[in-house]
């Protein structure tokens, strides 16, 4: 066998299993999402009928979908802003300040990220339980009885309870990410600023923030994508979209329609809208947060 031939054979053997699996179980299903959204396809009978964009027209007037849309957008905004604030704050503290048990804090903050979302749903069901829940009992101990709530039963606040669980889950992950980019900022910058008389807050806004800006921008896209995904997984395990659809989010509604209701075509149309929306949102945000990259 010639050298050239054996090289070609080697390449083929190495990459074809990966390409095959990737194509069959990821590319084809993704194409199917788009294709199926154009069909009226209901039930296991497999009756399929091409209907063009009819599914999308129905979607436009589906109040349940609009509610899930509002809930998702609210969650994305809340979770992104709150997590970003806390993650940057704690990352700055742990990299810049001399903290006792620095390492221990980092280890503990990352723990929620290794837990299954089902376990997190269980934990927060216990925290939010109206009678013997941890949160209400703490308020009870502090004689703040008026703060006690039906965290998962009250239509007006349940979405914020979900946001709380998502933030709790996400802080450590993003903190570790910001820490690694903050650690690469040279210490001499801070020394120089300190000599010039800049305080800690000034140092943070004038040095740390601009220098890790690109990292923050990247994570903004992560917030959008992962909040859409994780809110689905959490809501499905914790509230099931209830009470009364107040915690229904994008993908939980899609899953309900596609898998629960077996209206596959309609479900996939939701998927297409959500995918397009998240992509556009990420692109727009990346555009408006663009700053000149500072070299150091």
């Amino acid at each position: 066998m010639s050298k050239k031939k054996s090289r070609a054979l080697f390449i083929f053997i190495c990459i074809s299993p990966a390409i095959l699996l990737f194509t069959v179980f990821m590319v084809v299903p993704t194409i199917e999402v788009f294709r199926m959204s154009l069909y009226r396809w209901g039930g296991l009978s497999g009756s399929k009928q091409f209907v063009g964009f009819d599914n999308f027209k129905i979607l436009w007037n589906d109040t349940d979908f609009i509610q899930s849309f509002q809930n998702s957008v609210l969650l994305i905004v809340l979770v992104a802003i709150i997590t970003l604030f806390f993650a940057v704050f704690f990352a700055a503290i742990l990299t810049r300040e001399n903290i006792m048990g620095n390492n221990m804090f980092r280890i503990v903050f990352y723990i929620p990220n290794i837990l299954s979302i089902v376990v997190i749903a269980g934990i927060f069901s216990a925290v939010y339980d109206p009678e013997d829940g941890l949160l209400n009992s703490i308020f009870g101990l502090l004689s703040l009885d008026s703060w006690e709530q039906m965290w998962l039963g009250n239509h007006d606040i349940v979405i914020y309870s979900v946001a709380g669980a998502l933030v709790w889950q996400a802080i450590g992950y993003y903190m570790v990410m910001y820490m690694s980019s903050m650690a690469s900022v040279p210490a001499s910058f801070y020394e120089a600023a300190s000599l010039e008389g800049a305080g800690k807050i000034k140092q943070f806004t004038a040095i740390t923030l601009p220098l890790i800006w690109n990292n923050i921008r990247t994570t903004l896209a992560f917030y959008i994508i992962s909040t859409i995904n994780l809110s689905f997984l959490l809501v499905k395990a914790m509230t099931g979209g209830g009470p009364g659809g107040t915690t229904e989010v994008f993908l939980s509604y899609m899953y309900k329609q596609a898998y629960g209701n077996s209206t596959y075509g309609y479900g996939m149309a939701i998927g297409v809208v959500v995918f397009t929306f998240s992509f556009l949102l990420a692109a727009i945000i990346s555009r408006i947060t663009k700053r000149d990259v500072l070299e150091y």
Partner: protein
Amino acid sequence: MKKTKRISTDKLFKSFIYVALIGLAISIIIPVAWVFMASLKENSEFYGNPWALPDGFYIQNFVEAFIEANMGQYLLNSVMVTALALLFLLVVALPAAYVLSRFRFFASGLLNVFVKAGLFINVSYIAVPIFLLLLGWDTQLRALMGEDFFLNNRVMLALIYASTALPFTIFLLSSYFETLPSDFEEAANIDGAGYFRTMFSVMLPMAKPSIIIVVLFNFLLFWNEYILALTIMPGDNKTLPVGLLNLMAAERAAVNYGPMYAGMVIVMLPTLILYMIVQKRLTEGMTVGGVKG
């Protein structure tokens, strides 16, 4: 005068920082520790003060979870699916990442873009199409042989887990292979080693640190995953997280909380133990390829 003022604001700032740090740490440790505590409580202990320590070690909860709620069987399923998926993933992804990052050939650039595009595909979107795909195969198979094969199959689930993890894994491994100098391959070539020999005995052993990170991340991913497992394994053969979902629904309806918390402990204990052993590698490795599902 000015100096003392500076020192006192510094002190104030320091104590504020510690309050914030300890506050967050407590909000994480307490709920997790509480679940462990609750898993040892008898059912009557769940009424009244939730902060009371358990009266004793009520192991019966675990027995009930393991045997009556089938969590023992689900644990075995999860171990098997996770191990198989990791095996499939490494066998498929390692050679592919090596070739894609270090060989230039027809369409190699295109294939690289193709695989990287996969980073944007989220499992939650494609779970139902995968289910329909397997259902279609099963329908055809049933017509031929009268048996189902693809749905409710643990090996199939493992294979699909491995497939969905391919883009991220190949991306991570490739970025490591790219940093290696080509001297190694040239030396191996001069010594008369063929392509396969060079890959197996020279290049793959060098990638060990990256392989460990890949295994860690994907272990957590596979072990904790539930939406695919729920969708394509609707039968009795469940994985742990799906079993836990059922257990949570059943025990809440039956007002029998102990086994539910025991189930949660069973699911999270392996990941916690692993995390304690490798936490440094995990939080450092995250900076290599920061992608989240």
